[in-house]
């Protein structure tokens, strides 16, 4: 089956996404060297998740004032997080299902099960949460969030990252 990328998209939004060209330059490629059963895996979600009451939520007020702006910051989410500990800030999708079961966006429980079964070697201690709606330039992500996320991933010796935009 070939996935229809536009099945759930309102028809009026379609021109915004059709005919997206690949960025210039060669596609980067980092070979995956270890056995999966020996690899440490991290997750990255763009659902705008934060630890409720512990981390600041993503800034939706500014986005409401400046609709072309999106909060470029990020949060680290501990691998053992429980569903009730997460909040979600994202004005472009309904958050009810993610809050009911965050595994649909950040599958921490499923990854932990696969690690316990030996399918993957280990779960990275911290996963990564960003809010997917961003300014077109992506300057905030590029200048601040990316280097900080890379520091985290290197610090926890992640061999690979599963990214899931929402």
């Amino acid at each position, binding site marked *: 089956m070939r996935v229809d990328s536009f099945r759930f998209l309102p028809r009026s939004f379609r021109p915004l996404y059709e005919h997206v060209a690949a*960025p210039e330059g060669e596609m980067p490629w980092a070979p*995956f060297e270890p056995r999966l059963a020996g690899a440490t895996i991290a997750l*990255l979600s763009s659902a705008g998740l934060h630890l409720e009451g512990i981390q600041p939520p993503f800034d939706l007020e500014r986005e409401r004032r400046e609709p072309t702006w999106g909060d470029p910051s990020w949060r680290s989410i501990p691998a053992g997080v429980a569903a009730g500990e997460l909040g979600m800030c994202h004005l472009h999708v309904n958050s009810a299902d993610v809050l009911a079961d965050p595994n649909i966006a950040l*599958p921490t429980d499923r990854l932990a099960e696969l690690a316990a079964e030996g399918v*993957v070697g280990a779960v990275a201690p911290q996963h990564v949460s960003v809010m997917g709606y961003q300014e077109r330039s992506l300057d905030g992500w590029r200048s601040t969030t990316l280097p900080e996320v890379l520091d985290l991933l290197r610090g926890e010796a992640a061999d690979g990252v*599963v990214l899931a*935009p929402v």
Partner: protein
Amino acid sequence: MLARWIEEAGIPTVTVTMMPEVAVHAPRVVGVEFPFGHPFGLPGDVALQRRVLLTALTVLAGASAPGTRVDVDVEWPVPLRDAYKSWQPAEPSPIVAAMLARMRGEG
């Protein structure tokens, strides 16, 4: 673009996406025909979440060339009309509200 930048920094990535056609920047892509906000499936559907994650890990570890795309052959189990409505926020996002206002000639 995060996938591309992380990959450029030397860490392998796989991107699970509802819009594989649009993820042309990402070196390894797993496509799912699911409503937005649901890259790993339905709440409580452990088997489906596991299937998507296992597919992603298989592609992460096994893809041999940049630009690899594998689609998950699962039809969303909720009728299209309901699924189409339920992923959308109660209010249009600020940018959509602004676009709608402009189309109506208000802005």
